[in-house]
């Protein structure tokens, strides 16, 4: 659906050239929610703005449905943009227009006749649950409501793709949850493809199918969200995961665990149904002490994290770890005993 190859964007600043995008390759499949996460300054914003040419890349290619976007100009570009919805961190609603008029705005731009416009706006307001606020101005709405207007507006011209630029970053946790649910729902109902950028791993965990981690203008890690959670390859990715599943042990505790080996075990799906702890004790003669444990839900798949202190009781730690790996668990030794 969306294919990005070797995308480069440089900005010249007072201090020299800033490499915002340093050769980004990405592929987004139809109907998926694709998340791009990275620290501020990683190039997320530049990347998502390149998709509808709000930023003009310096090199590389962006193909949407096989068509090169970078060659679009003038009217062709405007028609193309009408088919890509976009929502923003600060909503960017017109303060001079009511909810209804804001949602009608892209339809006016596209030259949709008034009758059809009104019908469509009514449907969209219902879709996002704002019918009761039709004649309110944005200043009279809460952040979550404003973003609903933003979403309805972005959907007005029946786009195939929705771009979300930190859409929940200025919302409180409750509104964030509601907006993420709404995004997931409209993806399912309208068969949209959603590309979102965020600096919050919670957003990735909650609604994304696949994720790319961006650092210094490069994709450093990419994959199915559950796989990335299970087996992160990069330190930055681990740090992001720790913001939602914080398995850091309380300070001082690690020093106290001097006898055993400290191990992090992560697992998904059916692995959780095995009675692993008792097997460790009985078969491998290892005493395992659970210091931390939780089970999360990632896209409907249970995802578990355990921190174990393993103390040999006649058996070998290495054998026990191999056994866990054979069971499909991801094992990481945090500290040797």
């Amino acid at each position, binding site marked *: 659906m969306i294919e990005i190859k070797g995308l480069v964007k440089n900005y010249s600043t007072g201090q020299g050239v800033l490499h915002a995008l340093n050769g980004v390759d990405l592929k987004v499949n139809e109907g998926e929610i694709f998340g791009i996460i990275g620290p501020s300054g990683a190039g997320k914003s530049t990347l998502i703005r390149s998709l509808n040419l709000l930023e003009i890349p310096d090199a590389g290619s962006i193909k949407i449905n096989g068509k090169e976007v970078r060659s679009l100009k003038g009217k062709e570009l*405007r028609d193309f943009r009408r088919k890509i919805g976009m929502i923003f961190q600060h909503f960017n609603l017109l303060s*001079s227009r009511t909810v209804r008029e804001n949602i009608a705005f892209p339809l006016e731009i596209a030259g949709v006749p008034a009758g059809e416009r009104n019908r469509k706006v009514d449907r969209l307001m219902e879709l996002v649950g704002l019918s009761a606020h039709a004649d309110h101005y944005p200043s009279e709405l809460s952040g979550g409501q404003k973003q609903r207007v933003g979403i309805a507006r972005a959907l007005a011209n029946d786009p195939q793709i929705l771009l979300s630029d930190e859409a929940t970053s200025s919302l409180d946790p409750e509104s964030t949850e509601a907006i993420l649910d709404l995004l997931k729902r409209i993806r399912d109902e309208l068969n949209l493809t959603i590309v979102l950028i965020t600096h919050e791993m919670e957003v990735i965990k909650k609604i994304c199918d696949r994720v790319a981690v961006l650092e210094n203008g490069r994709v450093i890690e990419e994959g199915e969200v559950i796989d990335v959670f299970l087996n992160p390859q990069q330190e930055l990715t681990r740090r992001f995961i720790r913001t939602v599943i914080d398995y850091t042990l309380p300070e001082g505790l690690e020093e106290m665990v001097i006898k055993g080996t400290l191990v992090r075990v992560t697992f998904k799906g059916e692995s959780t149904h095995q009675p692993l702890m008792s097997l460790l004790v009985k078969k491998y003669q290892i005493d395992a002490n659970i210091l931390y444990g939780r089970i999360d839900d990632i896209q409907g798949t249970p995802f578990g994290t355990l921190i174990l202190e393993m103390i040999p009781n006649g058996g070998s730690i290495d054998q026990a770890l191999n056994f866990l790996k054979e069971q499909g668990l991801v094992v990481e030794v945090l500290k040797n005993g």
Partner: protein
Amino acid sequence: MGELLAILEKYNHLLLNGTLETLYMVSVSLVIAVIFGIPLGVLTTITRKGHILTNNVLNKILDGIINIGRSIPFIILMVAIIPLTRALVGTSIGTTAAIVPLAVAAIPFVARVVDNALLEIDPGIIEAARSMGATPLQIIVKVLLPEALPGLILGVTLTAINLIGYSAMAGAIGGGGLGDIAVRYGYQRFRIEVMVQTVIILVLLVQLIQWAGNKIASHFDHR
């Protein structure tokens, strides 16, 4: 007694006429200034760096014109453009003739006021419109002007009040209006009471215009 009444009547008639002349000069020149000043201001804003129709050269030229227009003292401008006034109105003396320098002085003022009001708009809103495939003209008409409307109204109010001040100067060289009366009767003939009356009328006019401008601006302000 009868003589006193006659004098009062004469002055009342004089003040009423003067007020009407002032209103005529200010309103006509204001309309002209708005008609020319808004496009000039819009063009200046949208040609700025990073705006929807960035054009550095054109922007510098427009910016320069506005600055020059605003730096020429009105009294000098009035004299300097007498040939233009003659060409347009047929004479350089009288209330109608005063409209030409008033409008010429107010155009760059309105342009700057428009430029400032448009720059206040959150760039994110313009970006959102671009992301929807809006043309530059659609962005101007549907985004920039409506979003800046409260600021534009306050700016026009400010221009109107400035024009009242300028019109008094125009009066001094034969343009008529309240300023003319204040100078001729109050200053040259030592009729303090006439001068005081004209000043009171001017103060009231300014108060009224500012009050109305604030009311209208806040009516359109939904921020």
